[in-house]
């Protein structure tokens, strides 16, 4: 049996159904538990899925999982691990219009023959898969009505730690999906490292002996944090989990607080935007109106990760929720990425967050210099079973503490690479420092170390992060350029306003010959509406003359130089949606 499967099933043997997973929903504003499975029940169903998969797919076959939020997804994911089949989780099309396009890309890229879903979603998926449209041929089966064999017929697959566990589709623009190959070793190592770093021995003992310890969350299971952190984390550390679907959380943000309060949750977790959304949704609400018994004093650990962490959001949430027992010491910032399974650095339970202020000009010059009136930065904790280096991205020279450079990572949690893409894999996963150490994963993110703690100062080059969506500027630019014959080259990026809130800005070159008497303002309006319709993004448009967007010598647009030029007032816009501060 795989070491990873043994590790997970060990918890089932030890704890049986004394620990559980439960999903809740909001019905008429009330929290209602809609499904629950104990560890042993979960394991039995996963073995049935494993036996069924072993009977109809070759070892190592890649299987696309397209499920709504719920326990069927978790049982099938575990079933794939048990059987030595490679799960490829993907979002259902009802969460995002481009999901089908994305799924088609994944089916092609991962050479998938079998798509698994539930009975409610199978008909639409099957119609799409057999239709004339872009879907490559693949069969679709609903596992909840498949007539699975007896769990006792499952026999463990002998698997090396280097065997692929699953493929996590992540970065890459819509047209070029990029699948990170996660091995059994990667997943086991990251789960164990997270447990060891985040949970001190006495806390882990509480979890081991107290059957009521619970986590609460709402993350999508097709993201690394939802899959590894939310769904697999509890099994690894003897806990229970209560969760709801991401859409339920977005529609009823207060359900998150009710889950924590009602189930006496010990921990919760979300990217920064989730806490910010909660805060925004509570603006006109009295907490006691929500639920007179709301009490968050049980919460001892609130992880914030997967996105840049904002100190003002941490402070505002803590202040807003203090009257119902939220303690600011429970904040646990972290840093990670799918290419390293999930977590790279994290904050130990009970330690509290490290907030620092650093001189803005010095940071831009590459040095972290504390300054009382500087930029607020939140420390993302210490390495979680990983070797983290700060390296000059141009010279590959390792940098000392307090110097800003690219974050490089190595260790057993770092994935093998991208599926079927040796060139990009070599670019990202095989970096060597100038003094010959390696291989390292190049994260593309910028940061510095201070007293062993990682501070992230800039995310992957050009990536736009808005409300939990990672948006590639190329996707915005492609839509805009195809809007009208008068829209030429353009550059998309984010710009923060005076309050620190980020806005998406598009600098669009005009082709004057194609304007046909229209004003630049009307062209901007056209582009804004097209982007709103196609991508559901509110974008502020700046129209400039031909050849105004900075390019490299080979003609590639330069987004950060365009942003700098706009900020410095060097662009002379023909039309501008935003009020520029010079």
């Amino acid at each position, binding site marked *: 049996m795989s070491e990873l499967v043994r590790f997970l099933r060990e918890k089932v043997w030890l704890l049986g159904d004394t620990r559980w997973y439960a999903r809740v929903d909001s019905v008429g504003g009330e929290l209602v538990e809609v499904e629950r499975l104990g560890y042993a029940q979960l394991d039995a169903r996963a073995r049935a899925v494993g036996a069924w998969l072993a009977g109809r797919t070759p070892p190592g076959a890649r299987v696309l999982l397209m499920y709504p939020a719920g326990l069927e997804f978790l049982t099938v994911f575990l079933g794939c691990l048990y059987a030595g089949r490679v799960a490829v989780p993907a979002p259902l099309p009802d969460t995002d219009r481009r999901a089908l396009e994305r799924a088609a890309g994944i089916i092609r890229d991962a050479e998938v023959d079998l798509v698994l879903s539930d009975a409610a979603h199978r008909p639409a998926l099957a119609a799409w898969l057999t239709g004339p449209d872009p879907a490559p041929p693949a069969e679709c089966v609903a596992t909840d009505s498949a007539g699975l064999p007896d769990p006792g017929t499952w026999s463990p697959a002998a698997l090396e730690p280097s065997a692929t566990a699953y493929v996590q589709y992540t970065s890459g623009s819509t047209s070029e999906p990029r699948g990170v190959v996660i091995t059994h070793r990667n997943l086991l190592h990251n789960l164990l490292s997270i447990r060891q770093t985040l949970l001190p021995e006495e806390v882990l003992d509480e979890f081991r002996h107290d059957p009521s310890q619970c986590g609460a969350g709402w993350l999508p299971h097709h993201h690394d944090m939802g899959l590894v952190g939310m769904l697999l984390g509890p099994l690894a550390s003897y806990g229970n989990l209560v969760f709801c679907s991401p859409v339920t959380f*977005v529609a009823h943000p207060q359900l998150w607080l009710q889950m924590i309060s009602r189930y006496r949750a010990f921990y919760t977790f979300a990217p920064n935007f989730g806490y910010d959304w909660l805060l925004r949704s509570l603006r006109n609400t009295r907490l006691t109106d929500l639920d007179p018994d709301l009490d968050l004093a049980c919460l001892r650990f609130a992880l914030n990760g997967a996105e840049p962490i904002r100190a003002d959001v941490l402070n505002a949430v803590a202040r807003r929720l203090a009257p119902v027992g939220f303690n600011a010491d429970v904040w646990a910032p972290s840093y990670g990425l799918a290419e390293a399974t999930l977590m790279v650095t994290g904050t130990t339970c009970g330690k509290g967050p490290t907030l620092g202020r650093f001189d803005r000009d010095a940071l831009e010059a590459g040095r972290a210099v504390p300054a009382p009136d500087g930029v607020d930065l939140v420390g993302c904790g210490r390495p979680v079973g990983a070797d983290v280096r700060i390296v000059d991205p141009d010279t590959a020279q390792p940098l000392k503490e307090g110097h800003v450079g690219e974050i490089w990572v190595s260790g057993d949690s770092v994935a093998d690479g991208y599926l079927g893409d040796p060139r990009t894999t070599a670019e990202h996963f095989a970096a060597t420092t100038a003094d010959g150490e390696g291989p390292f994963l190049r994260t593309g993110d910028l940061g510095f170390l201070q007293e062993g703690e990682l501070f992230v100062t800039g995310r992957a080059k050009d990536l736009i992060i808005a409300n*939990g969506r990672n948006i590639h500027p190329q996707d915005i630019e492609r839509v805009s350029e195809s809007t009208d014959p008068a829209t030429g080259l353009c550059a998309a990026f984010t710009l923060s306003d005076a309050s620190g809130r980020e806005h998406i800005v598009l600098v669009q070159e005009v082709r004057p010959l194609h304007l046909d008497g229209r004003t630049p303002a009307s062209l901007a309006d056209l582009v*804004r509406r097209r982007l709103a*319709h196609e991508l559901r993004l*509110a974008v502020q448009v700046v129209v400039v003359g031909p050849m105004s967007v900075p390019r490299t010598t080979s003609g590639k647009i330069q987004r950060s130089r365009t942003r700098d030029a706009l900020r410095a007032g060097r662009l002379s816009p023909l039309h501008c949606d935003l009020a520029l501060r010079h």
Partner: protein
Amino acid sequence: MSRSEILAELKAMLAEFGDVDPQLVDEQTAFIADLGLDSLVLVRMTVVAEERFGVRIPDEVAWELDTVGSVVSYVEESLSRRIGAGGE
């Protein structure tokens, strides 16, 4: 529910969830291009609209409803179809 009642309810929702002044809203107003609403507000409004109006708004439909007037029309048609089919 009449067209003007649906519009009034929608304006109230925009004020509640999007902090939008109802005075600034008419049937031509576009949610993203004019009001700059983000995807979280839109998802929340869609789910709450389903609950308050008692109609289903599938995601592929929601994506196409980009102005206030298009939502009012969709809700109006869904409600009248239901009554026509002997619902309520």
